[in-house]
């Protein structure tokens, strides 16, 4: 299969100033190529700089060194080609599901009939038909996250960035949302960058898994996952790869045993 390069992350580094001449390095010359329509998972331990990396990709922060290119054009600020789904749902509680989902195109000044049609398509796709005029407080955590996903898709972004979107959900809702996002992606192919600290989730979703080191973040290893979807979380292949990745991560425990 020919892979078309979409996003190029080239040798980026980022530090934050703590005190005079005292810097905390968060990302250390990290390079990564992301291809068209792939489901890329970035897997890393807590506080390793994943969110900073995403913010740089989305143009919300600038790297100290290096650059990020989308289709050969340097990213130098927030960009409607990048869609974001956040860990905390970030839906507006005073807007209905429909109003939340159509918000992006509405701000762009798109005609109502046009944007509603597209919003409805994605509302159906995430399984929220019938809830269009509900407001977020009437929805469960999983449903709110679906609103966020439909909203990101309705913007027609080139790249969809998801920052631990299921981190706050319970285990079973999480499994069902993972199945769903994998289905949606199969129907509506997009380039997805999905961040998680959960190995099982990474394996359930990714075409490729990029394992990051502890802070400062570098690429530790890249795993290709060639299992068919929907993935069997109990297959031998799945368990083996899970073990392999697990062994490559560090266990930080206070113990002498």
């Amino acid at each position, binding site marked *: 299969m020919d892979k078309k390069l979409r996003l190029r992350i080239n040798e980026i580094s980022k530090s934050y100033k703590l005190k005079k001449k005292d810097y905390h390095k968060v990302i250390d010359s990290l390079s990564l190529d992301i291809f068209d329509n792939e489901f890329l998972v970035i897997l890393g331990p807590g506080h390793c700089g994943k969110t900073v990396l995403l913010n740089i990709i989305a143009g919300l922060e600038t790297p100290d060194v290096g650059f990020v290119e989308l289709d050969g054009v340097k990213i130098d600020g927030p960009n409607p080609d990048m869609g974001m789904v956040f860990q905390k749902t970030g839906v507006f509680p005073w807007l209905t599901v429909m109003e939340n989902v159509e918000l992006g195109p509405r701000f762009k000044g798109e005609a109502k009939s046009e944007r509603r049609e597209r919003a409805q398509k994605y509302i159906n796709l995430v399984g929220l038909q019938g809830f269009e005029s509900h407001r977020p407080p009437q929805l469960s955590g999983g449903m709110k996250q679906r609103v966020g996903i439909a909203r990101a898709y309705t913007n027609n972004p080139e790249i969809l960035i998801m920052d631990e979107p299921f981190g706050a959900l319970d285990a079973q809702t999480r499994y069902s949302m993972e199945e769903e996002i994998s289905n949606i992606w199969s129907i509506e192919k997009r380039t997805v960058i999905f961040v998680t600290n959960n190995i099982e989730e990474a394996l359930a979703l990714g075409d490729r898994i990029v394992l990051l080191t502890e802070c400062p973040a570098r690429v530790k290893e890249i795993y290709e996952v060639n299992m068919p979807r929907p993935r069997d979380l109990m297959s031998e292949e799945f368990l083996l790869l899970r073990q392999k990745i697990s062994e490559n*991560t560090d266990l930080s425990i206070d113990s002498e*045993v």
Partner: protein
Amino acid sequence: MSENKIQVKNLTHAFGDLLVLDDISFNIKNEEFVCVVGPTGCGKTTFLNLLTRLIIPTSGEILIDGIPADPKIHNISFAFQEPSAFPWLTVEENIAYGMKIKKESKDVIKKRTDEVLNLLGLQKFRKQYPHQLSVSSEQRIVIGRSFAMHPDLLLMDEPYGQMDIKMRFYLEDEVIRLWKNFKSTVIFITHNIEEAIYLADKVIILTNKPAKIKEELEINIPRPRDIASKEFIEYRKYVTDQIKWW
């Protein structure tokens, strides 16, 4: 009969019109490790709160050694999902805390505290405070503290819910080590079916709300268990099918 440490008889609970638990009955043997799994929102927390007598059931009863469960008579320990070590006490003071409340002798407290510290491998951290350790270690202290009480019943509500698998496997082996050493009777609630099969002598599967017992399943695999073995996967698939609602 006498080997049944815990007997739950026709336990039913409703909040107003909302029936949460519907006629639950089961027994737990002395020194048994029981895991409870069930769909999200099926009433697992209500179930635990009834067992600790934090809330009083609408009907039904819970017997420990044949006597109605009563925190004034029985030792019931509880480990929550969120670590709850006392931040102003050192590691060893945290572990000794419950025993002090129960007015154990100094010798007993010292002996069991050392025992727990050895099993956890935390000897060299004994004088430190929880905030100087990681969150996972804080949880380990709380669990060690619960076992040190020699409880009649030890309840754990998803204590490893937020841990990634490598840490979880480590902690699961540790909890088995503690349980074997202290020979406690344990009820462990979890969302994670792999975890339930790894730990339990018996898994109790609850239905969707109102929760009833769908099945009691004995896990007949010797420990230490291999999560990739064929029989393990078979148990895991079976239980998953029982509670899958999506």
